[in-house]
């Protein structure tokens, strides 16, 4: 959609055939290279952090703080990468996170969890998230409701439902096993960060190494051609939204762990954050082209930015202005470098 306008020249570039790669251009064309611009932007940002905040930035604890912050929205963004690559969009992710978090922390759920195992909460969140995704997917694929509108409707409905279930109260978690598990670290790396890493790695494999991923590209790139090639486009679309719903459920679990609460206000504006991370990462909003690595970089750029701002005591409004400028610079950088690499 949007970028089509700008893409007139970009399309030309895009359509360039891959040349025989040599030396630097081969490097730039590699998976890591395709994201050169993003890597450079992230490195510059980190340099900025080191220069302005020195050790306070380059500290292990600080890096873990950034990663923990990135983890929740990161999991949502990985799921969003699939949906967008498959030619869709989902505005309801934040609301699904909220609803899942609320449902997984009702007194009833917590009671069952305490009587049996905390994993019940996890399953509840995944179930709720997955179900929401399924509804979205079905509305879009079989109901033929435009994705933007269908998920906008879900956004309203899911948040409303979350408020009704929680009675607009923050629900506090009292399931010791749950908190203990998610607060732990594996070899010094917090469990939340480990989960994010696993989701990102799993997402990468799924998108780039499986038939499911390949179909996702096909469905997003040219749904009619995909259909005529024998792909069940509608079923696949439903699967994509369900996958994203599951990611939202998982993100809800992570957010519950981080805040020890479930709340109808959780996940506010996650839709914008996730879409922004995905798009800045290089996934095409029009579908057919997506990169998990880019998304991870996108998430890291945004979270590192917040962190650097936090360390620097900038005026709050100035931060907003700076944020705008930095986003544009990052994209321009990515474009110039990606173009050079012939991507």
């Amino acid at each position, binding site marked *: 959609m949007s970028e089509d306008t700008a893409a007139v020249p970009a399309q030309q570039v895009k359509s360039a055939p891959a040349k025989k790669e040599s030396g630097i251009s081969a490097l730039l064309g590699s998976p890591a290279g395709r994201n050169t611009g993003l890597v450079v932007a992230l490195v510059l940002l980190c340099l900025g952090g080191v220069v302005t905040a020195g050790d*306070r930035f380059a*500290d292990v*604890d*600080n890096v873990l*703080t*950034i990663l*923990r*912050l990135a983890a*929740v*929205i990161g999991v949502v963004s990985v799921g969003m990468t699939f949906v967008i690559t498959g030619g869709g969009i989902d505005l309801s992710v934040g609301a699904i996170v909220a609803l899942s978090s609320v449902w997984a922390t009702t007194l009833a759920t917590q009671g069952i969890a305490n009587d049996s195992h905390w994993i019940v909460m996890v399953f509840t969140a995944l179930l709720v998230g997955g179900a929401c995704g399924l509804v979205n997917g079905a509305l879009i694929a079989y109901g033929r409701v435009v994705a933007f509108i269908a998920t906008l409707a879900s956004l309203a409905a899911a948040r409303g439902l979350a*408020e009704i279930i929680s009675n*607009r*109260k*923050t629900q*506090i978690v009292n399931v010791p096993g749950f908190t203990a598990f998610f607060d732990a670290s594996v070899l010094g790396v917090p469990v939340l960060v480990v989960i994010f890493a696993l989701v990102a790695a799993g997402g990468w494999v799924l998108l780039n190494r499986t038939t499911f991923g390949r179909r996702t590209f096909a469905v997003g790139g040219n749904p009619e051609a995909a259909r005529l090639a024998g792909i069940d486009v509608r079923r696949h679309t439903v699967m994509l939204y369900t996958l994203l719903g599951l990611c939202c459920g998982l993100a809800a679990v992570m*957010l519950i762990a*981080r*805040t*020890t*609460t479930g*709340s*109808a*206000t*959780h996940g*506010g*504006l996650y839709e914008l954050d996730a879409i922004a991370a995905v798009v800045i990462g290089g996934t095409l909003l029009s579908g057919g082209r997506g990169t998990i690595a880019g998304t991870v970089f996108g998430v890291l750029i945004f*979270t590192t930015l*917040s*962190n650097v*701002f*936090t*360390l620097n*005591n900038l*005026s*709050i409004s100035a*931060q907003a202005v700076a944020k705008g400028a930095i986003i544009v610079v990052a994209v321009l950088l990515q474009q110039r470098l990606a173009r050079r690499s012939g991507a």
Partner: protein
Amino acid sequence: GNTPQSQGGDQGGGAKVANDEPGDKVVIGFSAPAADHGWMAAITDAAKKEAGKYSDVELRVVEGTNDVNLQISQVETFINDKVDAIVLLPFDGAALTPVALKAMKAGITVINVDRQFDSPFAARSTVLGDNYGMGVSAGTYVCERLKDKPNAVVAEIAGIDSLPLTQDRSKGFAEALSGCGLKVGNRVAAEFTVESGERAAANLLQAAPKIDALWNHDDDQGVGVTAAIKNSGRSEFFMVGGAGSANVMREIKADNGPHKATVIYPSTQGADGIRLARLAVQNKSLGDLVEVEIPRQVQLYAPVVTKDNVDRYLPTAFES
């Protein structure tokens, strides 16, 4: 509380003498929700102003946010940074409790402002507005004025409805009204902003063709509510504000608009938090108290401001 606008400078507690003497340097981290409405902006501004008065205070203010995850990481950054104190107005008190506990465990003095944590161990001290009390004050005032009208129509324009504090306010209001046999006939919610106030009020005025009293939770959105009332040409009712902005107080004083009263919800809580944080870190006491430690909790009062007492409150009111 004081505001950036007030001339008073040092008010409250008579702490000026010993407590204002420079002591050991105190680094304070400050985090609050997004300043998406005037009251919240005033909170941060007042905190900054207050910190500016002390040469021994270094204040670090971070981006206001409504994402609890981001706010948690801001506090984590403060902990990594080993600040001396953190003044925290959490977007959601319960959600920020674990990280506040972590800060306290790390030996950092946490001062909780406005929206309360759910563990007493998560903060050294808490500065609270009285949301429930606000509703009670507003309801009581309405009861007083309408006590002869058992069938009076009372309307309510709430703030962001998903926030627990809004629930508390509405609860207090409803309970106070029931004391005199009244109830809320029409209730809408806005989002603490001028625009949302105007929108909510415009619809509300259509929903209720005749109103006797209207309570609006927040004076920022009240600017919009007033605009809508003016536009509708309605004047059969009186209005009670909330939070206590300077312009509403001026209106009360001049008696030229729908506002006849407002209930204060001090926007100086952040500034008070800064002071308490400094005192706690420097091991000082709260001036006018005999107690040598600063108290666990300071709950601010939610007085009703009317034409009769407005002069007392106007100097400390915030400009929306």
